[in-house]
């Protein structure tokens, strides 16, 4: 995945929001990354760590929340943890009929000082 360009998008978003809210400092940014979103959370964190120098996020704490995928079993309706898209129900071996989490890739909030 393209973690560097996505980190740039996050900085752009933070700069836009900071300006809109007259923020002088962004002290924390909270980002959720699902384990099946196609974004490597470690690579993304390193990329954002490097790119934030000289930006509004320079002094911001990067609060990266990793979200584990959850599937609902097609056969027994049991909810189970998913690490990858092809994971099956640990009880009965069926594929999920619904995937409830793990695709997140979003900026949740910014903590600012005006």
């Amino acid at each position, binding site marked *: 995945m*393209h973690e560097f*360009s996505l980190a740039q998008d996050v900085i752009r978003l933070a700069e836009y929001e900071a300006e809109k809210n007259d923020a002088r400092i962004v002290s924390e940014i909270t980002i959720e990354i699902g384990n099946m979103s196609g974004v490597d959370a470690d690579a993304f964190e390193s990329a954002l760590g490097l790119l934030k120098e000289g930006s509004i996020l320079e002094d911001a704490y990067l609060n990266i929340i990793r979200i584990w995928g959850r599937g609902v079993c097609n056969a027994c309706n049991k909810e189970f943890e998913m690490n990858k898209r092809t994971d099956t129900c640990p009880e009965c071996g069926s594929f999920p009929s619904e995937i409830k989490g793990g695709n997140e890739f979003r*900026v949740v909030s910014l903590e600012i*000082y*005006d």
Partner: protein
Amino acid sequence: MCETCGCGNPEGYKVQGPYHTHSHGEDHPHEHIHEHGHDHTHSHTHSNDDDHQLSHDHTHQKIIKLNVDILSANNLTAGMNRRFFEGRKVLCLNLVSSPGSGKTTILEKTIISLIPSKKIYVIEGDQQTHLDADRIAKTGATAIQINTGSGCHLDAKMVESAVEKLDIEANSILFIENVGNLVCPAMFDLGEQKRVVVVSTTEGEDKPVKYPNMFETSHLCIINKSDLLPYVDFSLEEFIKNTRIVNPDLKVITVSARTGEGMDKWFDWIFNQRKN
């Protein structure tokens, strides 16, 4: 950084073309090379000249709740591209695959068959060179090349800048040949109506489960190089079983772009999309 190709800054892309062959034998492409050195860095500097400067020096802490999808900027542009295509009744198909699956050959053969009845445009995405756009231009279609530089996929903005130069006629077909890569292009909506993933029989039948995102987001899977089936260990049955795991709705067709076998199924699929 991209785990497939190690690409870094994707913003150094450039759009070359359009290339089209002239009927009077003059076939040199018009070289309009536009450097698109990223043009949307919004730097708004506000000078606070007013005399009501910060009269109080204490600061306030505030939490801004956003819940914004980070890909939303790309998705917004993709949505605008899609509206444009729908408005002009243009069928836009995004072709994705690993390098060497035969996307360009499929396109060449497709254009030769369809161009008597349809105006066809092609946006070619590659890291470097305009070799593919030159190949496509020889078939009579209008081709435009996007060189992504160090980038590993096309994004909606690049397609938007290519479309601005193409002046697409109504009721035509636009093929986008994405950068050969089964990982990154899966995440980037370009505004296409349908996504077509191409694999070849020389690849493993485990591709769908190894690269699930790409197969999950595609509408049609073309298995190319069917003429090589007698010589390679490729189980069609196993491959289809693997596509079902990640995308039960994915339609699979087998073709040989080289011999033409099965290509009529692909053309029928294209014409069915136009009706929908």
